[in-house]
């Protein structure tokens, strides 16, 4: 059975299934695979079933709250859900349940979604591995991060959509590595109230879904309702102009990724878009701006924990937080200035070439093994925390919407993602471009071995 929101919603509306049956199926699938996958950190079956029963009663009474009504969803464990602890993948946090929902969870519930549980996050949402979660395509490999649990859960068919956060790529990275769709909306579009921050000026919340339409439905719900995003995705891309980014920081890429990327650009051209090479030299300095901002903002939030319980923080994250304390504030101010310079440069390049959107590899590599520290590109060796951020971070800095959509697999069958971006506020357009690409390439990424039938 197709387990997209659209398919499940149709089955609910026709009476073929119930929300209770969907939650029961989720609980069974979780028992079957999540011991190997580690995608959920907490599930409350009684609460989820009670929410499902409420949705079924509403539907029976003639109330239809929209596409998400009665659909089980996952929520990254940095987002408050009343009754669940928010642990952020860290022993720093208590097991006490949150008293209230984050604003986005309130919006999802208003749209009728059923919270299936909380998904695994990389510690403090600050990393690209998300241990102990695994990649459904190969459980010896990472799902990416920091929203790795959300991506693994959607990829394995446990839920059709899950909520993630993205400060340097944490929605798009795991989406690309797990063969699903991940949308980072325009900065500020989706509320972060009730969400543990990493770096407030770069944090974004958004959906990871099995299809572009699922992400559009989720974005509609996350932003308070209506069908602004889902209703406009079918227009196609004929006549659009897209800028193709292949220079650093998008290069170097693994050969299989490069082949898939160029094939994807050809598909976009076959769909009627004009694709033009684009070089934005300011993007060479993406990592300096990104990592000049995150440490200080993260330190401001975690200063007390760093002072009182530093041994409970992973050493790599501890180093980043300490950096926020010891590097001169002038570097932070200069990084903020650099961020604006980069954002303006992207806008200027798009205006100058009269572009509707940008195309780039979502990531330069496929999923690394859990033992890997570095990735190798010819004679270049790079730490995975750089490799898995350098292609996504430009759009955290610019605040533009950016989406990763599956575009192929490497020789080992591991998924590859295509990244699309549009101007700030043009979230509907980026979904439309992604939907056109998805429709033309459906089936190019088979479901993973751990997909639960």
């Amino acid at each position, binding site marked *: 059975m197709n387990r997209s929101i659209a398919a499940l919603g149709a089955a609910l509306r026709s009476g073929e299934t119930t929300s209770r049956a969907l939650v029961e199926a989720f609980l069974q699938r979780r028992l079957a695979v999540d011991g190997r996958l580690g995608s959920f950190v907490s599930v409350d079956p009684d609460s989820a079933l009670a929410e499902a029963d409420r949705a079924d009663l509403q539907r029976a009474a003639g109330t239809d709250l929209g596409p998400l009504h009665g659909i089980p969803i996952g929520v990254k464990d940095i987002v408050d859900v009343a009754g669940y602890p928010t642990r952020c993948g860290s022993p720093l946090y208590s097991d006490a349940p949150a008293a209230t929902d984050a604003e986005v969870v309130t919006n999802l519930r208003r749209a009728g979604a059923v919270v299936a549980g909380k998904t695994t996050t990389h510690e403090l949402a600050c990393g690209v591995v998300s241990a102990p979660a695994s990649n459904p395509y190969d459980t010896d490999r990472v799902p990416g991060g920091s929203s790795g649990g959300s991506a693994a859960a959607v990829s394995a068919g446990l839920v059709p959509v899950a909520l993630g956060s993205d400060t340097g790529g944490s929605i798009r990275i795991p989406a690309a590595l797990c063969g699903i769709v991940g949308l980072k909306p325009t900065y500020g579009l989706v509320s972060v109230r009730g969400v543990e921050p990493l770096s407030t000026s770069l944090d974004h919340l958004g959906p990871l879904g099995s299809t572009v339409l699922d992400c559009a439905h989720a974005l509609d719900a996350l932003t308070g309702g209506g069908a602004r995003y889902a209703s406009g995705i079918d227009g196609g891309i004929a006549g659009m102009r897209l800028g193709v980014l292949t220079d650093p920081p998008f290069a170097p890429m693994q050969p299989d990724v490069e082949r898939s990327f160029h094939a994807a650009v050809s598909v976009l051209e076959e769909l009627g878009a004009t694709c033009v090479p684009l070089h934005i030299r300011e993007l*060479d300095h993406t990592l300096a701006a990104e990592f000049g901002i995150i*440490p200080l903002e993260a330190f401001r939030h975690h200063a007390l924990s760093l002072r009182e319980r530093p*041994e409970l923080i992973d050493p790599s994250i501890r180093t980043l937080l*300490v950096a926020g*304390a010891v590097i001169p504030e002038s570097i932070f*101010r200069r990084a*903020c200035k650099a961020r*604006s*310079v980069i954002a303006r440069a992207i806008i200027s390049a798009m205006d100058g070439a009269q572009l509707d959107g940008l195309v780039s590899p979502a990531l330069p590599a496929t999923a690394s093994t859990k033992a890997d520290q570095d990735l190798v590109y010819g004679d270049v060796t790079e730490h995975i925390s750089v490799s898995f951020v350098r292609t996504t971070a430009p759009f955290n800095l610019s605040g533009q919407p950016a989406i990763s959509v599956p575009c192929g697999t490497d020789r080992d069958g591991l998924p590859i993602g295509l990244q699309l971006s549009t101007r700030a506020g043009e979230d509907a357009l980026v979904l439309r471009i992604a939907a056109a690409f998805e429709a033309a390439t459906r089936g190019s990424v088979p479901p993973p071995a751990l997909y639960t039938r």
Partner: protein
Amino acid sequence: MDDAVARRLAAAGLVSPVLDAAAIGADATMRDELDSSLDQLIGAGDVPEQPPFDPRNPS
């Protein structure tokens, strides 16, 4: 450890031994790599505090 780094650690109340090595690594990396890249992009020298970021109109 550089005296300036030690002073900033102390000023931030970060006195645990587990933080010293982190501070040394962080300081070296951030100073050498970030500062030089930022120099190339926006030039050397301090800048005023930036206004809140607006993606539709980055200042």
